[in-house]
């Protein structure tokens, strides 16, 4: 679904990424992990078409990425909700921008699915951080994306909410698998969610190694089986 071919990127004289080769399958959940400043967010923005690589090529569904695509959704570190819109109107934003027909039913369905039923008419500031990020997830899903790009979406949340949302995302992905690139600096999140984990080394960002998780789903945080992978990752990150 996603192909990166020798992708390098530099801006303002900073060499952020160097020679990234990566394939992400149609139903594959790939986590990208690394220390801050290793260019993982840049990688995501390149795939999203928000940035253009200095060298190399990126394609999604066989087409070269030159600009953002409708079947690719991006979820950011912060919920990025519009404070003047209700929850429902926020979820419907992408559809509205695309000029598509009414998606109200679908929006209600998604909100119900993520435990936000009954909150349609509220405004973002009335919701907790975790609920806001759920709204953001719904907004992402209403695009019916073939590819979901997520930039540390849970990093600003407290530990408990974070766990809940991780499990939520796992459910969503199990119900209808998509190609996902999930950028994180949390080993736990990566191990819980990903089929494959890409470890980046910093300055310039290079692929240090790729770890296949290969554990059955659904997984749960704190599950003993995850420990071995976590340990391996920790080792890789320390030497990265």
């Amino acid at each position, binding site marked *: 679904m996603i192909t990166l071919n020798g992708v390098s990127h530099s801006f303002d004289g900073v060499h952020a990424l160097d020679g990234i080769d990566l394939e992400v399958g149609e139903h594959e959940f790939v986590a990208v992990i690394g220390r801050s400043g290793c260019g993982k967010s840049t990688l995501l923005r390149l795939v*999203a*078409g*928000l940035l253009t690589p200095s060298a190399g090529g990126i394609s999604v569904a066989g087409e070269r990425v030159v*600009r*953002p*695509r*409708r079947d690719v*959704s*991006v979820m*950011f570190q*912060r919920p*990025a909700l*519009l*404070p*003047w819109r209700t929850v429902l109107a926020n979820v419907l*934003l*992408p559809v*509205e*921008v*695309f000029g598509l027909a009414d998606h109200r039913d679908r929006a209600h369905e998604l909100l119900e699915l993520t435990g936000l039923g009954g909150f349609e008419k509220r*405004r973002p*500031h009335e919701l907790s951080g975790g609920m806001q990020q759920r709204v953001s997830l719904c907004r992402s899903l209403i695009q019916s994306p073939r590819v979901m790009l997520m930039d540390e979406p849970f990093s600003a949340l407290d530990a408990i909410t974070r766990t809940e949302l991780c499990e939520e995302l796992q459910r969503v992905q199990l119900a209808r698998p998509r190609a996902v690139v999930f950028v994180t600096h949390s080993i736990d999140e990566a191990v819980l969610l990903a089929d494959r984990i890409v470890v980046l080394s910093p300055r310039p960002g290079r692929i240090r190694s790729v770890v296949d998780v290969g554990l059955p789903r659904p997984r749960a945080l704190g599950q003993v089986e995850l420990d071995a992978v976590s340990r391996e990752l920790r080792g890789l990150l320390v030497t990265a």
Partner: protein
Amino acid sequence: MKAVLPVLGLLAIVGIWWLATIVFEIQPLLVPSPADVVESFLELPGYLLEQALVTVWEAVSGFGLSVVAGVPLALLIVWSRVLERMFYPLLVALNAVPKVAIAPIVVVWFGFGLTSKVLMVVLVCVFPIVISTASGMRSTPAELVELFRSLDATRTHEFFKLRLWHALPQVFVGLKVSITLAVIGAVIGEFVGADAGLGYVILQSGASADTSLAFAAMALLAVISVALFYALTWTERKLVPWSEEHRVV
């Protein structure tokens, strides 16, 4: 309960003023006592309210025109770097010219009637509206702009579904500055040449040394400004409920 403190403050000031006129035996010609002012108002209530209405109409229609002109102007400035470079310095220059200096020319051009006053109001009002709207649109958080980019939204979408909305609380800051300036603008226009309005009343009362009438007119001007300001604050609360600004009046 909320209204008690401002009323108390007003009463205190009026009390001190009254006391001062008695204790220092100030001549009513220089500073009339509050009682003189009220008396003066009660002599000609119909006339004064009529003149007040003239000034209110000048201020409000000028203010309305400033909004109608100022917001699109701000939009154009933020939309296009070229337009900004071309016209922004001119706008700053225009604002820097003392309005009192322009007033006589405006009256020569547009006569003693409503038009010249409305134009004066627009001249003082439009700048704060343009500045606040433009800076509000510019300060749209990068993450929201990036969200719109990720949806491949057009610039029209970016402006009308995002930047303008985000600017609204800031726009109201400009509107609140402007609405009080509007009344000042109208009075400046009336001072220079008019046959109606509270500014005209003040000018006339000066000629006939009727200080308490001038004070009555000034009190009305103050009431008008405060009323317009709070009407705007109320509108803001209704229109921009998500703004934090409404807690600071």
